[in-house]
């Protein structure tokens, strides 16, 4: 199982990194999205896939054995939501940058720094 997820993570990282290295700002956005997915899956897999049982204690029980690790899940949950906020902010920021610099080419934008 780990091998399969490891390959998926590798592909998401490779494609994401390739996309954020493009000069077209729109591709940068897609790259951020791919990387975000890759990171979520990475944290999830590092928690080990030992059980597919949700970490929920059944009614009447006091504890649970053999469960999927809840700690990475909690981390990913907030990461997903924050990822949304960051994505929205990046979109608006990029849009403003495009408007101010009048180009969709990341390479051209640095000229306005000087």
């Amino acid at each position, binding site marked *: 199982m780990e091998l399969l997820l490891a390959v998926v993570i590798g592909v998401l990282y490779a494609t994401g990194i390739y*996309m954020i290295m493009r000069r077209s700002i729109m591709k940068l956005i897609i790259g951020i999205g791919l990387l975000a997915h890759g990171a979520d899956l990475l944290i999830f897999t590092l928690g080990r896939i030992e059980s597919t049982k949700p970490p929920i204690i059944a009614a009447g029980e006091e504890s649970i054995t053999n469960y999927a690790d809840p700690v990475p*899940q909690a981390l990913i949950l907030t990461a997903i939501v924050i990822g949304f906020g960051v994505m929205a902010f990046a979109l608006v920021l990029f849009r403003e940058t495009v408007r101010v610099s009048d180009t969709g080419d990341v390479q051209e934008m640095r000229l306005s720094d000087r």
Partner: protein
Amino acid sequence: MALPLIVFSGFLLALIAAVIAHVARRATGWLLALLPLGIFAYLVRLIPAIADGQTVVTEIVWVPSLKVNLTFNLDGLALLMALLVSGIGALILIYTSGYMRDDPGIGRLDAYLLFFMASMLGLVLSDNLFTLFIFWELTSISSYLLIGFKYRYQTSRDAALQALLVTAGGGLAMLAGFVLLSASADSATISTIINDNLFSSSSSMYGAVLILILLGAFAKSAQFPFHFWLPNAMEAPTPVSAYLHSATMVKAGIYLLARFTPILGGTTAWTTIVVSIGGLTMLLGAYLAWQKRDLKRILAYATISVLGTIVLLLGIGTELAVEAAMVFLLAHALYKGALFMVAGSVDKAAGTRNIDGLGGLLAKMPVTFVAALVAGLSMAGLPPLLGFIAKELEYDALLHEAGAYPVLVIVALVAANALVGVAAGLVVIKPFFGRKPMLKRDPHESPLSMWLGPLLLAALGLLFGLMPALVDDTLIVPATVAVTGATELEHLALWHGLTVPMGLSVLTIGLAVVVYLLRNRLQVMTKRTTSGRFGPAHFYEWSLDWMLRSADKLTLFLQNGNLRVYLNVIIGTAVLLVGSVFLFYTLPDMTLNTDINDVSVIAAGLSGMIIVAAISATLFRSRLAAIAVLGVIGYSIAILFLLFGAPDLAMTQFSVETLTVVVIVLVIWKLPYFENLTKRGDRIKDVVIAVAAGLLMTLFVLVITATPLTSQITPDIVADSYLIAKGRNVVNVILVDFRGVDTFGEITVLSVAGIGVFVLSRLRSEKRRRPDDDG
């Protein structure tokens, strides 16, 4: 608890000093002086106990794991310094209220002065290396604020920055020395290190510790080659020069040397370095002092010379030499504080500090003159003043040394003392005697607040000179004992009979008189030597300039604004470093879990879909298609989460994925289409880097998952989830309870992102609404 109170009350009063100044107006100085006066009185009451050999110790535990504690220890040396700081501090605050009369900046100046006083008291009372360092740097910071008090002037700002860079830079070296010292002595308490002999000169760290601590002390006490900041610091208002840059702060380096004499002193290295640097500084300061025309600069160079002398005496380190150093320290604080205040009064009255433009003020300012005369006599080392006793003791201490070098030192000492005497003559005679030059203002006697301080300090110099027993057993001996641990010390006396020191004193004074009378002719000869273009000050300017320019270049090189270069460098470095470790160290010894028998059909199908979608996202020419594919990946991952026992994640991922697509679609019409901008070669290079990074991540996951998770965190959380936190959904319990602080931070970040989107958009529509933007 009295010692922390002494230190921290000053900081507290500094906070409200400006408010008090606003209300009390002209009474401010007198009012604020009550605090240092109270501290002074308290310390005076302690004199008998301290002289008896007791110490007052208070410890407040602060960061014990780092050995940083607020340990205060009042011994003879600290007492002498603390008395000077608080006593002169009170007089300076009073003087300031006259000097800054009706100036709206007085509240600020008083606040800084109190801030300095508290820092300086903390410095001399600290028994912990690290709190000593903190107070040390606080005095540098307050000195920075005070020198730059007239911040509208470029010269003030430059001088302030220079003083800060030099003294705080020395302080950093000192901190490094302290760290080494506390590490090898396994204690950060100075008195413990001394009493238990935890650090000796045979330690392998001795050389480094010695050099680093000496650097700090020399920078602070304006020793060669760091002396140049002190004359420039004269940009500060005169009360500041009187207080910080003659009487107290510049003595911090000397205090440090004295304090560390029991730990570091007595070795050949110590004697060689400290004596030669001190001697050099002494000669240099004296040589330059009498050639200056500005009253404050004359006094500043004379101060450098005196500081050098005291350092030299501490370098010799015998009981007699240390005793001479302590007497000289006291005498100098008294007369130099007084003379600086006199210089300020003259400046205020006559409108200039240039001795060539001054004269005949005797009739106009008789009280100020008396103060100047008495203090000047002490500075010149004439009997019956304390300055004379100090000088006699210096000669006596050196005459007790065997060998050849004391003779050299004595010659230097006589020359320096004589030249300082000339400087004293200039300061006392030039403004008050001679013909009256044309002045812009009509000079008149200063108000009480401005002559009280100098007169009192000068009078004390006279009183202690006439009756040295007043300070002998009470201050000087306890301070010397604290440094040397000696028990038997020579008593101070004004008259020793016709001894060799007496003869040297006469020689010194005679030499001073000759140089004073011939000074104009001598100056022609020396002029060429003093206008050199190469010196430590030039080195300072050159190195500062070089540093700024190099930083500029480096920043432009590293932060060139090209995102692709950053990414290439960051990712390439990570891949190379981590990858080579993996290949050569980690992988050869491990078996990876490549078992794929447990893969379900659904999981395999979803994974395949994600892989295909991700690769196609990089190939599409349409951005909408890429966005749709991104959505497909998101939903597939959500289903994977569901399959692997994470229903919470699946729900969240579904909702967020939907909302992300909505948001992208809302914005995309304002963003450019996909474009192929990169050259083919660049693209291939990027593919190589990206694929290598992806491979690395795959390997990374396999390497980590090959070892079982041994953390006890998860089992503990699961066990407590229902029983203690009363929740059955462990993920939710982690979010709102176990890691609640984390979640709180995260919703705060989320809020910031939301507000950020709002502000960025609003910013734009506000702009668009402006009429001139239309069309």
